[in-house]
């Protein structure tokens, strides 16, 4: 059985690289949170008062 070809070794991230990735993750989290608020508000406006009018 032949050996699987070796993948090139990934270069290590520097502390600065990691800080950049962290800032990117925080920005993505904020965008996602914003989307939650966006869909909530749009749903309220589209549905109007009828949103409360449903059987329990």
């Amino acid at each position: 059985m032949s050996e699987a070809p070796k993948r090139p070794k990934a270069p290590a991230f520097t502390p600065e690289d990691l800080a950049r990735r962290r800032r990117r993750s925080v920005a993505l989290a904020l965008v996602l949170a914003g989307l939650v608020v966006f869909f909530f508000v749009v749903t309220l406006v589209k549905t109007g008062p009828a949103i409360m009018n449903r059987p329990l």
Partner: protein
Amino acid sequence: MSAVFDRIDPRTEGSALTSTGEARDFFELLKPRVMLLVVVTALTGMATAPGSVHPVLGLAALLAIAVGAGASGCLNMWYDADIDKLMTRTAKRPIPAGRILPSEALAFGLTLSVGSVLVLGLVANLLAAGMLAFTIFFYAVVYSMWLKRWTPQNIVIGGAAGAFPPMIGEAVVTGDFGMHSLVLFAIIFLWTPPHFWALALVKSDDYARAGIPMLPNVAGAAATRRQIMAYSLVMAPVAVLPALMGFGGLIYLVVSVITGLAMIGLAVRVLRTTQGEAASKACYALFGFSILYLFLLFAVLLAENSLGLMWALPKVIG
């Protein structure tokens, strides 16, 4: 093997699947200045449409249109990364500069494209969503992948993509298209060639290096100058139409006539000044003023139709 990984990560030649690009690099992929123009023109399309929309839904629709426009810009940068790195104007963009991987840009652009169309369909209507999808397709596929590298008329036909937003704006409000947004479409469509060709005249070496058949490189500088003049002469009167059709008021009439004459004057300067530094200055002056011109036209229309600043004129057409 290295070729495979070069495609994955040209920056490190390693096996990293994501770059270390920051949020602002991703934002830059959306071409923010173009997005701003799209926001202003789409909002004007909404404001001049006969009808009204709930402000929250209007804002949500505007956001979807802006993100859709940004997505098409992102897909354009993904596809054009190979030629962008050859041109001084575009070499510092996130992909050619190595801050964002091509695969990341493609995923980002596709995700935002689908998301923006779906959101517009949900908050507005299917016509507006379909129009946004067509605009993204037109810019990313018809213009970027086909016309741009094939014909010197690339930005003439491709200019339609930038002209659609007012029509999408009207579709958001009325669920239909009318003459108002068609006139706004025509203004942007006719504005695009003199705007881009003024830049192409001074950047023709860049375009030649990248092998893009812009008009100055194919038909020559003299023919391009004549075309700029011709388009400006047609565009300026068309830009006055909103005042004659009753959806632009007195302020719009004055602004569109004065700035239209200024555009024609700058086009004449480009036509007559053909040599040396003065020729470049004339082109830059037209290019710079054309941006201000379009913003002014749409900002005045927007203010007149939404802030109660309309001094109505008698309707001459329509």
